[in-house]
């Protein structure tokens, strides 16, 4: 046979099959048949044909959906998930959530002063650098930050350690620049934090950030006689002064990677605030006082407010002192006790320079020591060990409630 192409072969097969096929059409039409139902055996597999196109489309649809889900999740994580939280404590305490890109997702106040600040600004979606600048400027404007109250605690908590560290350095640099521009200089305490339940509870209860709560808890481990509530209520500058008075280097409590930017000693150095009119290099207390009175009118209102707060806390602490005495039975050195007590209860009655410095730990520099304070101190000394049962019972209950 001659060479055949595929077409020719198929043609031969077609003709051959046609010749073989019987012609039964008429007979088949005449035969009676029953109508089949849908599950007749000879129809098995006939419906599969429909699934095929769908299956192919479903495969592509599933793939497209998976790609979309991956893209969406990545986008969400980048832009809408909190990657780190920044805690700012001056006296206002503010927490700022940021995403991977350094954009602010949310800013929350942990205390009333923080709420006052945040009510006047909208930081959502702002770049963290701009947000920091705006926050610090506002704090200066409201008097929370000043030349004498120029200390802030900057804590960062993040999902990724490296990113959190990089963020902390970035905003620390922003803060340093802002404080330098606004106040000439500033002190920044930096730390990384990983808040646990205890820290969160304390921060929520006392209206401070977890950053400050974590720092205070570390201080209290070494100084159990100090009052948590009082420390929580202190502005950062006063807290540092209290530590320095007690001979504590607060930088040791900032944890691994924590650091201090600025000169801590400047908080206690009188010469820094010396407005020596006669240039004799002697400490001029009268000059200082006058100039402070002239230049810081707003401070008085703040000081009055703080005094009121201190008075209230003193009432609560009157009976705590007797309790503390019992707890401090191991301390043989009375002077150390005194210093510690004064550091925690900075309303000291001592009229020497050391005492005055200690008292400044709670009262911003330039605040007046008045008769009320002296009387309160006297009363406190008289009541040590005695206790006024009427108030003490109530106070004790309040303290216990606070401590729960």
């Amino acid at each position, binding site marked *: 046979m001659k060479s055949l192409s595929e077409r020719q072969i198929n043609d031969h*097969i077609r003709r051959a099959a046609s010749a073989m096929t019987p012609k039964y*059409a008429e007979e088949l039409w005449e035969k009676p048949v029953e109508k089949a139902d849908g599950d007749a055996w000879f129809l098995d597999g006939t419906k599969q044909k429909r699934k095929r196109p769908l299956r192919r489309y479903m495969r592509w649809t599933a793939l497209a959906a998976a790609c979309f889900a991956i893209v969406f999740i990545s986008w969400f994580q980048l832009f809408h998930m909190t990657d780190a939280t920044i805690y700012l404590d001056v006296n206002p305490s503010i927490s700022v959530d940021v995403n991977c890109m350094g954009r602010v997702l949310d800013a929350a106040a942990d205390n009333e002063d923080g709420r006052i600040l945040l009510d006047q600004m909208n930081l959502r979606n702002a770049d963290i650098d701009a947000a920091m600048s705006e926050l610090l400027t506002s704090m200066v404007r409201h008097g929370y930050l000043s030349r004498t109250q120029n200390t802030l605690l900057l804590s960062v908590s993040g999902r990724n350690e490296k990113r959190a560290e990089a963020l902390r350095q970035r905003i620390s640099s922003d803060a340093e620049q802002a404080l330098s521009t606004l106040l000439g200089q500033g002190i920044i305490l930096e730390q990384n934090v990983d808040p646990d339940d205890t820290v969160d509870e304390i921060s929520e209860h006392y209206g401070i950030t977890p950053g400050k709560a974590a720092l205070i808890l570390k201080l209290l481990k070494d100084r159990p006689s100090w009052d948590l509530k009082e420390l929580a209520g202190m502005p950062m500058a006063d807290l540092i002064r209290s530590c320095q008075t007690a001979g504590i280097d607060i930088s040791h409590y900032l944890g691994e990677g924590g650091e201090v930017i600025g000169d801590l000693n400047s908080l206690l150095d009188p010469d820094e605030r010396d407005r020596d009119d006669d240039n004799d290099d002697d400490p001029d207390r009268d000059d200082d006082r006058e100039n402070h009175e002239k230049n810081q009118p707003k401070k008085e209102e703040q000081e009055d407010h703080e005094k009121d707060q201190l008075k209230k806390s003193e009432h609560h602490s009157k009976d705590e002192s007797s309790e503390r005495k019992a707890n401090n039975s191991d301390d043989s050195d009375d002077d150390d006790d005194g210093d510690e007590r004064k550091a925690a209860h900075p309303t000291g009655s001592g009229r020497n320079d050391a005492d005055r410095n200690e008292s400044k730990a709670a009262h911003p520099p330039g605040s007046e020591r008045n008769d009320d304070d002296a009387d309160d101190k006297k009363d406190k000394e008289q009541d040590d060990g005695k206790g006024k049962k009427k108030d003490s019972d109530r106070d004790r209950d309040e303290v216990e409630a606070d401590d729960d």
Partner: protein
Amino acid sequence: MLIFEAVVYETPPQQAEILLDESLFPRIASGDKAAFLALYEKCSSPVFAYALSILRSRGDSEDAMQDTFLKIRSAAHLYQPLGKPLAWIFTITRNICLMMYRQRAHTAQLPEEDRVQDLGFDRIQNAEDRMTLEKAFTVLPEDSCRIIMLHALSGMKHREIAELMNMPLSTVLSKYKRGIEKLRTELEGMP
């Protein structure tokens, strides 16, 4: 000779895929005889050849073909227009053949030489046609034979054949190509 061949072998143009109007089925379901006859005219030969490639017996293949068209009549109202009427028909044919194959499994097998004669190729008058079909059934593996029958007689695409036979497309293409080559070799070697 060439002219003679041209006259004798004047066939309809190369047959592409059988184009079946899907509206035939609802018409058959409603009792339209003309629709049934049209369907039989177009599909009886491919159905028969496909059944023959499975059952390897002319008698059984004729029964299977008849049963196929009776089932088509009984299930025409269930046909869903999916654009592949041939696949629907051949699936019915396959199911019927498999049923018969299982039933026949218990009966005695014919000797090899009788099985070939049993195919009924002697009824094909044209020698080349007969030789080609005979070679396809005797020389080729069963799968290749089946694939060639479906493609040559119905014009079904290889993808559709792969779906019908539940095989990968690449396997179908490969078997088809090897089958055609083998047939060509066998036929060219003949006088």
